[in-house]
């Protein structure tokens, strides 16, 4: 390892622009003639649109245009789609209701876009938007998924009778029933996974520019995957053919899943730019983000876990109802299915599992992947069940888990996944040692003397990252492949540009990815640049989500580096009159191993481009591309332990310590990995303690600002005690597993297990606010 190579804590190359105020986010883009958009949004959760009057708005100062869904449809812009086909257990395809980017006859949630107003200033656009007169005929509303499935519930889409999108099964129901019939003990629970609102700090924004001279569109957008945005807008929404559409995702201020999807606003602004002849910028305000960004989670589950007389798990049954909101967002169907039920085996050797998932339309914002996407929901079910079972069986929660750990790999679970590597004892041991788990009871007694209820809880999670391979996900219904691309360009002076289809919106790719080239060629990291986020620069890519950029994105770079290295060695061997097999590249020199015959790296690059003296038949240049399609998911896992003190008088929970011991396989930059864990933990602890999304019965979002939705702030969180163990992932060349979501996946059950341990009442839902905890304490009295 060099000081800037693989494994080094290299400070981030991208930081300078962010700490000096020179970052360039979408809202920082100003182009000549640019105008501002505001969307007219539905105030009702469910209504027929009986009329839209735009004349008054059009007459307002500064207004350039007011456009509605009818004009959009007339121009052939398509409906928004979900790109992952799921079939119900009876073989029928999922029932996708129509989602027009601007609603024409029916609105189905508060925030549903109805019209766009374009004006000289943002203020004028908003004033005029208020002057657009939409008349509605209100319809009955349903916000809860359980209620939406009941007979007589309000119906959202004619395509989906009973609001049921699909009724899907995974696993062997018969084998699971047989296991339960012989069980010595069954733990049963009803578990709710609360709806969350992602809240990347940069609100979504887009700038659409139509160039009439070239008949060409440019879309600046807050996207985690600009290439997928271009593909979908071209192939499905008829905005423009791919060669006439450039999508640029510049600096993006966080995503957490919410910026994966192609929302109405991007394509409406592009279309409106052509329609009005001016560049159109739209920036969401925070309340718009609360209303109209895709939300996360929102599962209602009944689970049963069966044990034999030796406390070994013999079977697991899970029934989940997942709320997908008013429309099916781009990957919404995959989250409660292949990203959820496939992880229900947890870290445990479970011979029989059966899961049933029903997905449901309601009059709420669309729900899709949010940091963890299905895996936090699975982990919450599994780890709440394990802790509860341990309490019922009166055994140590750690020992019950240990007794059931998977210990031989590869391990085929009954729910598709084949775990390739792991050492769950190692992370459990590391976590328990760091938390002084053995000494807890003394601390509990000490706290009791101070009138505090102290509790400890753990969570042993496994997750799946770098969803793959493409052929497998295709067979499961995915509309896209899940490979990644890379191109390594060595310039004539030896500096290096790496083009990647991944996108960085906080993950530090400009540093971590550059470390690979610094390691490989011994060049300074400052001579390596990472290029991403622009479809004109990088031909194709699949973007960043699901903790895939390390395991998949960097593996593609490794493949391209292999090709560059091979060619560089051929050139060097020719220059040094040596055998190619004897050439090594070290510390910026290319040398014949074991001799003092060297040629500097930049001279090899220069030789490639002068082409004066290349091996016979070799093409000039030193630039190679690669596509990498993984052979399997990767499986990070770990143990999170939370220790809390609850004030019985107020219900206030204080986190005394939070330990995370994670196995991410090989790590390229530990500093960045630690940062990813910290952020994930904050979101997981936020879900457990603070973040609750509330719609009232009429479908109004009551938590639509930072005054109402409780974001974790600095004083809500402790400093974290985190560490890693390492079992390399065997399925990619770097041995990487992925670290972006683990914190949000492992932490919620650890927190709730700790609080319920403290208050001696297991009936506690998230978020465990002081009010909820206090009520649970009273109920247990």
């Amino acid at each position, binding site marked *: 390892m060099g000081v800037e190579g693989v494994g080094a804590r290299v*400070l*981030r190359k*991208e*930081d*300078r*622009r*962010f*700490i*000096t*105020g*020179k*970052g*360039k*986010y979408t*809202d*920082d883009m*100003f182009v000549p003639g640019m105008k501002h958009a505001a969307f007219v949004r539905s105030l009702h959760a469910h209504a027929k649109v009986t009329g839209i009057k735009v004349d008054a708005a059009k007459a307002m100062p500064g207004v350039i245009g007011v456009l509605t869904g009818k004009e959009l449809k007339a121009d052939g812009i398509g409906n928004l789609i979900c790109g992952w086909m799921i079939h119900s257990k009876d073989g029928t395809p999922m029932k996708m209701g129509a989602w027009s980017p601007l609603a024409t006859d029916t609105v189905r949630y508060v925030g549903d876009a109805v019209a766009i107003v374009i004006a000289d*200033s943002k*203020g004028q656009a908003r004033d005029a938007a208020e002057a657009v007169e939409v008349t509605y005929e209100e319809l009955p509303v349903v916000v809860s998924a359980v209620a939406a499935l009941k007979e007589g519930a309000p119906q959202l889409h004619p395509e989906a009778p009973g609001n049921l999108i699909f009724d899907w099964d995974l696993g062997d129901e018969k084998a699971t029933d047989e296991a339960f019939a012989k069980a010595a003990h069954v733990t049963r629970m009803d578990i709710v996974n609360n709806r969350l609102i992602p*809240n*990347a*700090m*940069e*609100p979504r924004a887009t700038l659409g520019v139509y160039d009439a001279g070239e008949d060409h569109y440019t879309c600046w957008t807050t996207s985690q995957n600009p290439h997928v945005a271009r593909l979908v807008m071209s192939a499905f929404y008829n905005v423009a053919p791919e060669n006439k559409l450039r999508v640029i995702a510049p*600096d*993006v*201020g*966080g995503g*957490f899943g919410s910026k994966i999807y192609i929302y109405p606003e991007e394509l409406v602004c592009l279309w409106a730019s052509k329609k009005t002849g001016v560049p159109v910028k739209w*920036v969401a*305000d*925070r*309340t718009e983000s609360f209303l109209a960004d895709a939300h996360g989670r929102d599962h209602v589950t009944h689970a049963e876990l069966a044990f034999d007389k030796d406390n070994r798990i013999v079977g697991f049954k899970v029934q989940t109802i997942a709320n997908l909101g008013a429309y099916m967002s781009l990957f919404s169907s995959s989250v409660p299915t292949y990203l959820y039920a496939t992880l229900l085996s947890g870290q445990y050797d479970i011979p029989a599992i059966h899961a049933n998932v029903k997905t449901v339309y309601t009059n709420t914002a669309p729900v899709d992947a949010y940091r963890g996407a299905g895996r936090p929901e699975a982990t919450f079910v599994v780890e709440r069940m394990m802790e509860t079972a341990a309490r019922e069986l009166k055994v140590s929660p750690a020992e019950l888990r240990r007794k059931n750990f998977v210990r031989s790999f590869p391990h085929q679970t009954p729910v598709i996944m084949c775990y390739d590597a792991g050492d769950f004892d190692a992370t459990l041991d590391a976590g328990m040692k760091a938390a002084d788990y053995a000494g807890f009871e003394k601390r509990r007694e000490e706290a009791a003397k101070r009138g505090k209820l102290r509790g400890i809880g753990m969570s042993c999670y496994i997750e799946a990252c770098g969803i793959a391979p493409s052929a497998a996900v295709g067979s499961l219904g995915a509309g896209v492949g899940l490979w990644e691309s890379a191109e390594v360009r060595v310039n004539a002076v030896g500096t290096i540009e790496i083009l990647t289809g991944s996108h960085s*919106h*906080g*993950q*530090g790719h400009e540093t971590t990815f550059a470390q690979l080239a610094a390691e490989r060629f011994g060049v300074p990291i400052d001579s390596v640049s990472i290029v991403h986020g622009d479809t004109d620069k990088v031909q194709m890519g699949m973007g960043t989500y699901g903790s895939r950029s390390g395991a998949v994105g960097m593996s593609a770079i490794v493949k391209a580096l292999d090709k560059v290295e091979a060619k560089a060695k051929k050139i060097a061997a020719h220059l040094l009159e040596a055998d190619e097999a004897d050439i090594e590249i070290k510390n910026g020199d290319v040398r014949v191993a074991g001799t003092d015959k060297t040629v500097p790296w930049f001279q090899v690059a220069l030789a490639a481009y002068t082409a004066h003296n290349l091996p016979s038949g070799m093409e000039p240049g030193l630039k190679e591309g690669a596509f990498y399609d993984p052979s399997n998911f990767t499986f990070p896992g770990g143990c999170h332990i939370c220790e809390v003190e609850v004030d019985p008088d107020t219900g206030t929970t204080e986190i005394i310590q939070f330990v995370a011991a994670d196995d991410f396989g090989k790590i390229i930059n530990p*500093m*960045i990995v*630690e*940062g990813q864990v*910290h*952020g*994930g*933990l*904050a*979101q997981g602890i936020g879900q457990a303690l603070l973040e609750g999304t509330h719609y009232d019965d009429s479908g109004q979002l009551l938590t639509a*600002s*930072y*005054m109402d939705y409780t*974001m*974790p*702030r*600095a*004083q809500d*969180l402790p*400093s*974290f005690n985190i560490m890693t163990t390492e079992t390399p992932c065997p399925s990619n060349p770097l041995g990487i597993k992925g670290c972006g979501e683990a*914190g949000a996946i492992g932490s919620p059950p650890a927190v709730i297990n700790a609080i319920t341990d403290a208050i001696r009442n297991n009936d506690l839902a998230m978020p465990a606010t002081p009010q909820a905890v206090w009520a649970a304490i009273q109920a247990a009295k």
Partner: protein
Amino acid sequence: MAKVELVVNGRAVTGEAEDRTLLVHFLRENLGLTGTHVGCDTSQCGACVVHVDGRAVKSCTMLAAQASGSTVTTIEGLSPNGELHPLQAAFRENHALQCGFCTPGMLMSSADMIRRHPEGLDEATVRLELEGNICRCTGYHNIVKAVLDASAKMGKGAVKAA
């Protein structure tokens, strides 16, 4: 329209803006100082913090016209000599930023915090005083470290035990 006269990052500027224009929009749109960000509509997130006459202010909570006559420092002016301010250096060295969107506001709030606490800072104080700045990426762990680090290095007192 309101006439706005400010000294921003050491330079005298004048401009006209709609009466309702917030200081943050004037800085971003009239002056092109896009380092100051807008992250919410309720003065909660702190992405827009600048210094007005030497004190941290949420520039979304002040009209541009109201600020007229003031001296304003934005993130672009935190370190006028081209070298990093000790806080900027500490944020980088402690990996206290990820997506960078909240960072300018965090830095401006933290600079004010360190100024107000010449006796030095401890973890609890830093966490309490960051109440008005929301970060969704870092879990605050490294931000707190960076502020303590900068506070210590700026020589305004040793870090007290937490």
